[in-house]
């Protein structure tokens, strides 16, 4: 259980050769790029994440939570992004800032082939697998932070309890 990411932008600048350049460029370019369209109804429900950050998070979650067989609820159906956003609202702002930096890095600094959200699922999986087993501690840390948030947003939901064979809380869910 390690939901709070501890990757700091400064650490990345120091530790990865290209990461700093990509992150810096990504931050500048990212502000001026459009193409992050989010349903306005959904956008207004976000407490912490920007629409762009939400879209990057969901792109990551769709791969991390890719179903093993038909019938498993999709992350979008569960509302993983909103669940994570709600959780982030409980965190210290400095931790949230680190996660936001991580999402920007994933989007603009994880592949020379383009933005993460525009890559094929296979290419996205390749990046995540690289991060998961990277020799750089900070990349493995970033991967685990994203994975834990994805799991938090997905597996604490009555619709996924059945997938685990878990009966859920004894108390009424609406409590």
């Amino acid at each position, binding site marked *: *259980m*390690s*939901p*709070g*990411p*501890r*990757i700091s932008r400064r650490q990345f600048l120091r530790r990865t050769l290209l990461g700093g350049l990509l992150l810096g460029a990504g931050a500048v370019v990212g502000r001026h790029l459009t193409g992050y369209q989010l349903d306005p109804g959904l956008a207004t429900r976000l407490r912490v994440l920007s629409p762009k950050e939400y879209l990057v998070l969901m792109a990551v979650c769709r*791969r*991390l*939570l*890719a*179903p*093993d*067989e038909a019938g*498993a609820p999709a992350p979008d159906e569960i509302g993983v992004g909103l*669940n994570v956003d*709600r*959780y982030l609202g*409980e*965190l*210290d*702002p*400095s*931790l949230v800032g680190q996660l936001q930096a991580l999402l920007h890095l994933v989007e603009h600094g994880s592949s020379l082939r383009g933005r993460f959200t525009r890559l094929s699922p296979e290419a996205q*999986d390749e990046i*995540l*697998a690289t991060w*998961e*087993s990277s020799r750089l*501690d*900070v990349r*493995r*840390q970033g991967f*685990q*932070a994203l*994975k*834990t948030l994805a*799991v*938090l947003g997905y*597996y*604490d939901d009555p619709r*996924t*309890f059945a*997938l*685990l*064979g*878990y009966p859920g*809380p*004894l*108390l009424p*869910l609406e*409590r």
Partner: protein
Amino acid sequence: MIRSAQELREDTTLTADLVVVGSGAGGGMLLRDAALAGLRVIALEEGGHHRPATFTQRERDMLPRLFQDAGGRQTVDGAITVLQGRGVGGSTVHNTNLCKRAPDRVLEEWAERFGLADWRPARLADDFAAVEALLHVSDIDPGQVNRNNELLLRGMKRLGWRGGLLRHNRRGCIGSGFCELGCAYDAKENVPKVLLPEALAHGAELFTECRAERVLVEAGRAVGVMARALRQGQPGPTLTIRARAVALAGSAVGSAALARASGLPDPHDLVGRNLHIHPAAAVAGLFDEPVEGYVGIPQSVECTELIDWEPGSPRRIWIVPAFAHPVGLVAMMPGFGAAHMRLARRYRYLAVLAAMLHDESAGEVRVTRAGRPELHYRLNEADRSALGRGMQACGQLLFAAGAREVMVPLTRPLVARTESELAPLATHPYRPLDPLLSAVHPMGTLPMAASPEHGVTDGRGAWHGLPGLYVADGSLFPTSLGGPPQITIYTAGRRVARSILEDLRHA
């Protein structure tokens, strides 16, 4: 009276005999004993006052309410998740109620190495007994042992390993299994249920939702604490408590961070160092029949085969069951995507054991410019080796109990079908996050020692060289404990209360 500091509209100053920072096991006991003795006591708590009637048994609700950083506190390298309590009662609200006295050999070591003669087992026995009576500590009924714990018992029996049933402080337990998310049935005999009502009935006051920012020192004496109300995480008015005595009881992380932020006297550069946390690695066994480790008391059995508490011994692993609710367990499973989901579907059939390290490695609590604690901690070579052996032993126990497969959550997962396939674990080249580790027992950052060269505090919990300041939590332990610390922390609170009463009487 319990008040939220959020109600404060302007900077406020109050006076008391004693101000206690933190309301966990140590602070709660100190608050109660001091109030019963007639002192005017005010306690400050960073988190909220959460009542059992509001507990939902869901991780996404309860992690933010009951844990520091919403359950996400980690060492700075992200390698170890450190679960710590936040809110009235601290970790006593969500711990698994294990009640063990500090091991005799550890206490003897404290006496021999640190001059803490008053902490020898015989000198502590009466205090331990009083604490256990107060908290209704009892043997766990064999009928309450769940399947995950039964499997550990079975494994130990087949291997001929040492261990057995634990003791706990629960009454009225219905075996819901949600201990670590707070007990909605109020069966924990903890600070909010047992100690706080007595303290409040004797005039103690508790302010919630305020963060202590600085210990006030005047003319070479601690004279109070300046705290700040928190409004939805944002700083509000200050709350200053001026008092004849000040006690830090905000955990080995919080107390050390406050001490550092306050620039308290530290002539030997000891404050915040000597951080021990009992890092633990989980190992899962897949069984043919459902285990349903989420039902019943999560931890009722221990294996002590690999721990002897001798200083310098390689036998430093304490093994207990470690089943968790879905998020906690599934996040630890290796991989992602479809392969990860296939593992998750085995949730009901898994038994999980944890190898908890009686650690020699020592880390450090630092403070960021924004005032947040940072935990720096790396395992030394000997501890890595012990942990590898511990994971291997967990696998042996699971196989002996009948597991079909044993899974170790390394980055490249180890899935063993025979005991011999566990052998690589003993020499696995540990690196941060491989495997993921967790810890629930930070301690040692303001350690006791008779000499100020070796300890921040003396054996009475008083700060060396700063009259009026005391420590009453796990920060006091000069070494790792090698077992669940709550009873020893409660006992420390009781003893520090006695020190304060004695000193104030003579002041």
